[in-house]
């Protein structure tokens, strides 16, 4: 008798074993037309169009989001900069203050920066889901400690020699005359403060910073005095928060952002950096206040290499790219895995970078070529330069510039069959994990936690089973508490990519091995399943049919819209009603076949992005 524990994940909110298996998702979905715009449940509907059809025809779902102009979402209160945004802000500020010694000063502060807590992904309220790190708005003592310590370390380095002080402040910072120190500091603050503090500095604030040089604060040489000034400057609110000045009022709670505030919001969002020279010039000249001037800056920044890194961040965290990338050599010492690996070309080095490159490369390609969501979903080209990862596709490595090679074989369907989605680096595949990822990340469905005791389920059998058979036996037997969700919502999505082995290679047969790596039995792979996507419960044959249903259902576009909104607004989760206008704008555009680039652009061209709305 073999006991086969397996990870159980996910039950849909409200679903349980009593759900009618004939229409399992109907018990929990609000369904097309049932979804009220004011409803607070994200993505309650699992189907598109008329559910219950059995012929496999996909009926596109109605738009998930609706705009109710009477409802206006409130911006997050005083957003803090993400860690990377803070680092970039500091770096650029130091470079503006002291171009020649910035590198040394930043190196001096590196140990303190290491104390700054990393941002964590803030997930929406769905079991197994993950969110964006820039949504981490937590303020902590550790963070404040690090901010101040970093400012201090940088400042002390910059002010440590007479030569450096002179370069930053002028000769007055090294003349031995304490009487002019405040004036000396004020000159610097007035000159660079507006830019370094992104236009948030008031006259009063400038005086406060300069007063750090006041001899009345205690004894100390000029190195100490001017380090105090720089510390005070580099620890201002603009280094912690996105302080946004408001321009013309639109209502009691809503106002246009000022030019410099809009420039900061736009720049941090698209590049993770404060405004560059061109954007700053546009902001201060008033050009950004015009539609054409603003759009010109948006277009420029979208083409900027820094924006590509931010888009990578978006796709990475949305689609679990790095989270899902595994080192396929990690388990090679496990005989059963080694036996699986030896069935085909097996990597000998860490495959994670190559897997990540492939997935993010696909996203970059889609963005850069003006592709829409369908193209992104169905693009099968191989975008890795890692020959060993490419070999998993049966392809040559990409050279990084020419047309990406096509995979060998016939089973690849696009995004969800990339090695980054199918490979798990274990001795057998895990349809449950694959299903949860597709359900929550790609379709943005909401799952609730498994019922108590679900994780203790075991399969009592002496039979040698395939990966799918194990999952079926464990979660889909009559009477199981797991049945309702696993059979309909989770497992089928995983079964449909079972024709890819644990290394992400195509397969038509699966061999089960014992713990010593001895082959026990070989199975024909069975992929067919009803994925409950696209308003039909008809069985799909494989990943290609699943991809087609996803692409035709409108669900991927709705998910993209929600994710992009979260990323842009730095919210863990949208309010479908209050945020409906911004969300529906994105969804409509994506559903219309517009390019990913257009959707990205729309996210910042939106009036909602350009206004600041606060709670009363």
């Amino acid at each position, binding site marked *: 008798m073999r006991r086969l524990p397996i990870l159980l994940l996910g039950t849909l909110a409200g679903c349980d074993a009593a759900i009618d298996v004939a229409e399992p998702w109907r018990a929990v979905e609000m369904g097309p037309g049932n979804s009220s715009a004011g409803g607070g449940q994200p993505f309650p509907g699992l189907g598109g169009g008329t559910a219950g059809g059995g012929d496999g025809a996909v009926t596109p779902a109605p738009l998930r989001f609706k705009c109710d102009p009477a409802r206006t979402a409130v911006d997050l209160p005083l957003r803090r900069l993400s860690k990377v945004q803070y680092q970039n802000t500091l770096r650029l500020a130091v470079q503006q203050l002291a171009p020649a010694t910035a590198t040394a000063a930043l190196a001096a502060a590196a140990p303190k920066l290491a104390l700054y807590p990393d941002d964590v992904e803030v997930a929406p309220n769905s079991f197994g889901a993950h969110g964006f790190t820039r949504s981490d708005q937590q303020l902590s003592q550790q963070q404040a400690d690090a901010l101040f310590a970093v400012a201090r370390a940088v400042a*002390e380095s910059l002010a440590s020699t007479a030569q450096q002080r002179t370069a930053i402040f002028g000769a007055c910072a090294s003349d031995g005359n304490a009487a002019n120190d405040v004036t000396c500091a004020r000159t610097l603050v007035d000159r660079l403060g507006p830019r370094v503090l992104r236009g948030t500095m008031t006259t009063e604030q400038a005086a406060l910073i300069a007063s750090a040089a006041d001899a009345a604060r205690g004894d100390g040489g000029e190195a100490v005095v001017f380090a105090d000034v720089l510390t005070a400057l580099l620890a201002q609110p603009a280094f912690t928060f996105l302080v946004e000045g408001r321009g013309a009022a639109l209502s009691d709670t809503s106002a246009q952002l000022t030019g410099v505030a809009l420039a900061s919001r736009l720049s941090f969002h698209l590049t993770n950096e404060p405004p560059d020279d061109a954007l700053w010039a546009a902001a201060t000249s008033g050009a950004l206040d015009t539609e054409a001037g603003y759009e010109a800056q948006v277009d420029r920044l979208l083409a900027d290499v820094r924006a590509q890194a931010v888009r990578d961040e978006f796709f990475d965290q949305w689609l679990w790219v790095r989270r899902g990338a595994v080192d396929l050599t990690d388990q090679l010492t496990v005989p059963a895995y080694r036996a699986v690996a030896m069935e085909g070309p097996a990597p000998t080095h860490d495959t994670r970078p190559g897997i990540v490159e492939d997935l993010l490369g696909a996203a970059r390609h889609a963005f850069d070529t003006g592709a829409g969501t369908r193209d992104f979903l169905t693009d099968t080209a191989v975008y890795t330069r890692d020959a060993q990862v490419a070999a998993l596709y049966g392809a040559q490595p990409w050279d990084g510039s020419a047309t990406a090679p096509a995979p060998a074989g016939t089973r690849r369907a696009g995004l969800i069959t990339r090695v980054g989605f199918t490979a798990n680096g274990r001795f057998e595949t895990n349809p449950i994990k694959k299903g949860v990822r597709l359900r929550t990340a790609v379709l943005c469905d909401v799952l609730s936690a498994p019922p108590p005791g679900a994780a203790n389920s075991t399969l009592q059998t002496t039979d040698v089973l395939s990966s799918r058979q194990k999952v079926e036996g464990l979660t889909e037997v009559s009477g199981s508490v797991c049945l309702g969700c696993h059979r309909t919502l989770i497992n089928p999505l995983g079964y449909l990519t079972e024709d890819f082995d644990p290394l992400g290679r195509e397969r038509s047969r699966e061999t089960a091995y014992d713990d010593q790596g001895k082959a026990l039995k070989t199975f024909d792979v069975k992929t067919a399943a009803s994925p409950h996507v696209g308003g039909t419960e008809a069985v799909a044959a494989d990943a290609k049919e699943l991809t087609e249903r996803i692409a035709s259902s409108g669900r991927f576009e709705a998910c993209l819209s929600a994710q992009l909104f979260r990323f842009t607004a730095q919210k863990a989760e949208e309010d479908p009603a209050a945020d409906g206008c911004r969300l529906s704008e994105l969804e409509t555009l994506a559903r219309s076949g517009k390019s990913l680039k257009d959707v990205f652009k729309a996210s910042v061209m939106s009036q909602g992005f350009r206004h600041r709305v606060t709670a009363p």
Partner: protein
Amino acid sequence: MKARDLPDVIAQQGTPLSRRWLLKGAGGALLAIPVLPSLLSEAQAQTAAANRKIFLAYCFPNSTIRGDAYCPSGLPVAEVKDYAGFSIRRTQLKGSASGGVMRVSDVLSTSSGLLTDALIAKANVIRGCDYSGSWTHNSMHLGNFGVGQGFSRPDYYRRSIDQVLADSPSFYPSFGGTRRSVLFGSGPYEGTPSYASRNGSIVGLGSEQVKSAYQLYSQLFGGFVPGAPTAKPRKSVVDLVSESFKKLRGDARLSSGDKLRLDQHVEHLAEIERRQQVVGTLSCPGKPSAPADLQPAGEAAGSASHVATLRSYEDVLVAALQCNLTRVAVCYTNYNLFSFGDTADWHHQIEHFAAGDPLAQGKAVEAARKVVSEVVVPLAAKLDAITDTDGKTLLDRSLIFPVSEMGEPDHGISGRVFVTFGGADGAVRTGNFLDYRNLGSTPRDGVRFGLTIQQLYGSILQAMGVPRSEWGESTNQGYGARPLASDVYGGSGSGPTVGSVAAHPDAVWAVAGEKLPWFGV
């Protein structure tokens, strides 16, 4: 010329300093000391909160006594640890009192009213941190292994550790006292162990050496205005930063949610400010009465007289420490301290025979006991009797570091033992006998090598709040130069002859930048 007009060169002595000093070579060129400006700021940042640590060293010549004389015996080993390729040991110090005498070891033995259990708990005995280089008289007590009596190795020239401290922007982020360091002693001064003295090609800075308590008083309290502190500690800018956030909070355009976020950050800033203010502040008792202006005692005065002289220095020093006039002091004791009147040439009649002559050995042990137990212990007790506003004593802030010129046997340099007092403001763990010797190795002339003095001095500097970035080496993370592979230790009456690699293999140097186990917190 004003001090602040001098770019990076300070050569005058005795002037209250308000800026960082750099050392200047004797020829006028700046010495290439291993300090990177970019790293100094890190050092300063690490001690942004006030550094109030005190380093007090006692340097005494010779003391060629057996190492066991310093160490406790018969106590159970508390911990054994594999380190640098061999086993090291920690034993908890414990004294035994009998007949009014508290005894930890032959050297650490004095009145039980002075050497209490509480004071023993604030002491360490450290064995097995070897001098690893060539040796000569009159040098190397506190580092700089490049110069001594008739000996010069320019490639080994370094600032001694008291020089590093006195010059450190981390140790003195803002100096407001009267002397960055003081050097005083009994009898004529011959060595080059400290900040004030010429140290190889490094020009000594700070205070000139003084020969009497009166001179020390004049140096420290000469410019001191009674009733007014000489330095006003500079206020941290946290309050200004916090004020900026509060001003922003007053912006009418901010929502209540925005203000809550600002409040949260302001609370965190307040916590930073509160922590910076936790540092205790001693109250300065004011300007003490000047000691008698006596001529330094001569050779014939005998050891009792010199012990009394050293104790009179301590009264001045303790008062100055309370008033924060300095935080580095080095006492250099001369041969005459050990003259008991029964020999005219202590060095050649006692030291050179101490290894093989029990009578000479006994006298050498007693000389070391006098320094440690009748000079150093009373100072430790005095400092421990002064409590700060935060409940810590002045001793708790301090590290008292007696260091002899030689170890065992004869003029050996590797077998020295250090008896320290004080916790360096929490940076040093105390109450232990730390034996870092490789007891599994084959002894050479009775000496087993262990770790290096480079590691000990590096640990001390780190304990005093001065990071490696201010003194570290490119090839050795400990303090000071690593000997060349071709260097030979000892010989010619200065301990066992052994190649540097055989004495201290790579595994030992690999840890030389670490804080000594069980010592540095």
